[in-house]
């Protein structure tokens, strides 16, 4: 970092970092990838989703427990420390438990020492200190801190669109009446827009041969411009929907605090979450999904120069990740899933930019060193061979998992469909368009309805 402007204290040690970065990204740049340990087995964890959904980055920040380091911007003098989840009797004890999982079977606390009553009571006393993640907030943190700003009422809208990606922007443009478009990114176009812009600006024009991504970028820019010019659309950038309450209420959070909006019609286009698959030790710090990478390599700008990064998977996100990583100076290893079917232009781009290309692989296990990722081990479909690829980061680009919580809470009827990535609208064709039992007009669209980026690109190309 050329001109560090902010110093934070990590477990007492001063670290220089860039203003605007998240705490998780700042720690990453200083080589601190293990941000927490899991409660039962004491497994190392790090910023994994980078979107505030997982618990990998829960840390004690400024005297408050369980704060998401990936969502907390650095400020001068910020104090951050790892927590001691589960480790009431020390980490060695946890490691012992981890090695002897069969001695500590799932739900053991339900079954052990139920009698006599005195032993049961003692057992409760022994396990209680193990539970819980953080310690209570420091007195200074709750007594002296000013109260949060009063919430705002954003009033009633004809339409509120949740999600500013391709589907959300299309819905906002098509909506009638006063429309509010909510997205957690600072700019229009959703999470991929920034990644595409950064990739396009990379050395050697990584997007030059990646035609589908270029089309996606053009589409996002075009819709963004149309939304900006649409008089009926009001944007709420850098805003997250933190709660949905029936019949028609959305609870929102931005830098200024909470606000409430209600609507006659809600379009749920909140996209998808990264799905990392269930291979061995996939929870090691350093294993990310594409959406986490867009955040960490985009807005957070972690230092990737010279780092070996394996990008495994299939579909457009894999190529966008590779292009973004290339633009950020990483050494890219493209590991293609057996189902991946890249076109000749894409393969030519990989060769031109010097990306290492490996094909026909599925991840089998993550291999760690000092608590974070050192290599990814693959199954190449042949008996006996288990090729490995050394890497500091592995980006797993599988099918996204539709975000369904808010739509469910508003009353949508959903069904589990693995072919569409998770919980999706029951209605045929994937879209959900209709009234909830409480009477709200609700539409589910885009990746949240089970579509993929590839589907969208096909639609656009057609």
């Amino acid at each position, binding site marked *: 970092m050329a001109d560090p402007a902010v110093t934070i204290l990590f477990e007492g040690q001063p670290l220089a970092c860039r203003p605007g970065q998240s705490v998780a990204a700042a720690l990453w740049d200083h080589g601190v990838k293990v941000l927490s340990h899991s409660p039962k087995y004491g497994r190392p964890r790090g910023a994994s989703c980078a979107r505030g959904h997982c618990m990998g980055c829960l840390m004690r920040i400024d005297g*408050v*427990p*369980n704060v998401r380091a990936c969502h907390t911007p650095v400020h001068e003098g910020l104090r951050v420390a790892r927590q001691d989840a589960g480790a*009431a009797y020390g980490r060695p004890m946890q490691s012992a438990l981890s090695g002897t999982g069969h001695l500590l079977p799932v739900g053991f*606390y*339900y*079954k*052990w*020492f*139920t*009698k*006599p*009553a005195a032993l*049961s009571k003692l*057992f*409760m006393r022994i*396990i*209680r*200190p193990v*539970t*819980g*993640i*953080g*310690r*209570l*907030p420091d*007195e200074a*943190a*709750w*007594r002296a*801190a000013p*109260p949060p700003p009063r919430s705002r009422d954003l009033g009633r809208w004809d339409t509120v669109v949740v999600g500013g990606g391709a589907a959300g922007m299309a819905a906002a443009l098509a909506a009638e009446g006063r429309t509010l478009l909510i997205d957690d990114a600072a700019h229009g176009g959703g999470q991929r827009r920034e990644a595409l812009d950064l990739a396009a600006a990379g050395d050697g024009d990584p997007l030059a041969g990646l035609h589908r991504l270029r089309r996606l970028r053009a589409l996002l820019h075009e819709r963004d411009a149309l939304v900006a010019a649409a008089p009926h659309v009001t944007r709420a950038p850098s805003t997250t929907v933190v*709660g949905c*309450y*029936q019949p028609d*209420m959305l*609870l929102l959070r931005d830098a200024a605090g909470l606000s*409430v909006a209600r609507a006659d019609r809600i379009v749920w286009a909140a996209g998808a979450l990264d799905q990392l698959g269930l291979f061995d030790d996939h929870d090691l710090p350093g294993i990310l999904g594409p959406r986490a990478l867009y955040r960490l390599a985009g807005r957070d700008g972690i230092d990737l120069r010279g780092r070996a990064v394996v990008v495994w998977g299939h579909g457009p996100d894999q190529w966008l990740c590779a292009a973004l990583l290339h633009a950020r100076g990483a050494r890219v290893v493209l590991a293609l899933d057996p189902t991946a079917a890249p076109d000749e232009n894409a393969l030519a781009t990989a060769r031109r930019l010097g990306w290492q290309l490996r094909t026909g692989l599925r991840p089998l296990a993550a291999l760690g060193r000092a608590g974070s990722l050192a290599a990814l081990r693959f199954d190449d479909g042949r008996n006996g061979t288990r090729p490995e690829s050394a890497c500091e980061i592995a980006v797993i680009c599988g099918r996204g998992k539709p975000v369904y919580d808010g739509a469910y*809470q508003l009353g949508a009827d959903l069904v589990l469909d693995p072919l569409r990535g998770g919980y999706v609208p029951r209605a045929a064709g994937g879209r959900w368009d209709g009234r909830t039992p*409480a009477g709200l007009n609700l539409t589910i669209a885009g990746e949240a309805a089970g579509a993929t980026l590839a589907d969208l690109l096909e639609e656009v190309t057609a």
Partner: protein
Amino acid sequence: MIPLPEGPVPATADAVIVGGGINGLAIAYELARRGMKRLVVLERDYLGSGSTGRCGGGIRQQWTTAENIRLAQESVAAFEHLAGELGLQTFFRQGGYLMVTEDESHLDSLRKAVALQNSCQVPSRYLEPRECLDIVPQLDISRLKGATFCQKDGTAYPFSVVWGYAKAATRRGVRIFIRTRLLEVRHDGDRITGVLTDRGEISTPLLINCAGPWSRSLAAMVGVQLPNRQERHEIMVSESCKPFLDPMVISISDGIYFSQSMRGEIVGGIGDPDEPHWDRPAQFDTRSQLRFAVRFARALTAYWPPARKLRLMRQWAGMYDVTPDHRPILGGVPGLEGYQMACGYSGHGFMLAPMAASRLAKQITGGGPDAIIDSLSLARFSRGDIEADAFVVG
């Protein structure tokens, strides 16, 4: 342990218990323990899905009527050994109950309640506000006028207790059918003869109504009018922290209660005087409201300021089955053979059920009359023999 429904229900049973919450399962277990065979429990959804699994898990003996104190006292004694008896932890922990008030006018009844409780050998005591700090160090006592405390009160994990009863009952031959609906009750004049479910018909001479908030409509199916009304109450859990709070804290001024679970979460709720009451199941509404979260957050941060920086993780709602005197309805109905009930717990079914079930089962299996069951019979309302319990919170 938690059986999946398989095939049709049996054609005959010696008793059909409606409701797979703590009441239905505890009664099934107690009946089986006393030698009854061919018992069937029907549950419309999953075990504990009605009110038991939605409750805060509190168990207290600080009541204002002798019957409630007595039942609660026996239940506490039962909870002390229940894990061993059922073969599953209940996570029963006697961290005590601290009952506080901000209202000068409550002090007299608090003192009277302590006297009554002490006369029943419940070791509660009256506290001045500053003495509360010995129990909950960061409590904001500036608005408190007085409190009572009983160390022997505590909490348990409702699902674990439900599973424990289910496991112990199943081991004794009870058949539990989850995701099974009761459609009709067959009766021949003044005698129960069977039930029709969506998994088939069961011929039975005994129907036990443990249907919680649905008990009123089930009773109506056999022509019994219950005075119960159903209230919606919401509850929440916070993120998980290392142990910091031993007792359950409840306020009889504004109806907030909160404790810390064995997992480290704050578990708590608050009543809403503006909530409408319901009188038919089709209106039951267990969706979550933002209004509850706001009311709870305001009250919690006022009583216990460190919570300002802690987080609410999830919230849900459940139904109270409330009687005019806030005490349960136990036993049968004169003139209707083969009908028994254990309902109307008014928000306190979890804590009172173990002993109510045991007493009711004893009476059903020929153990003779029971003074407490008699005093809690439906007939008390027509006799006009009612004394309401004052300490209903949540």
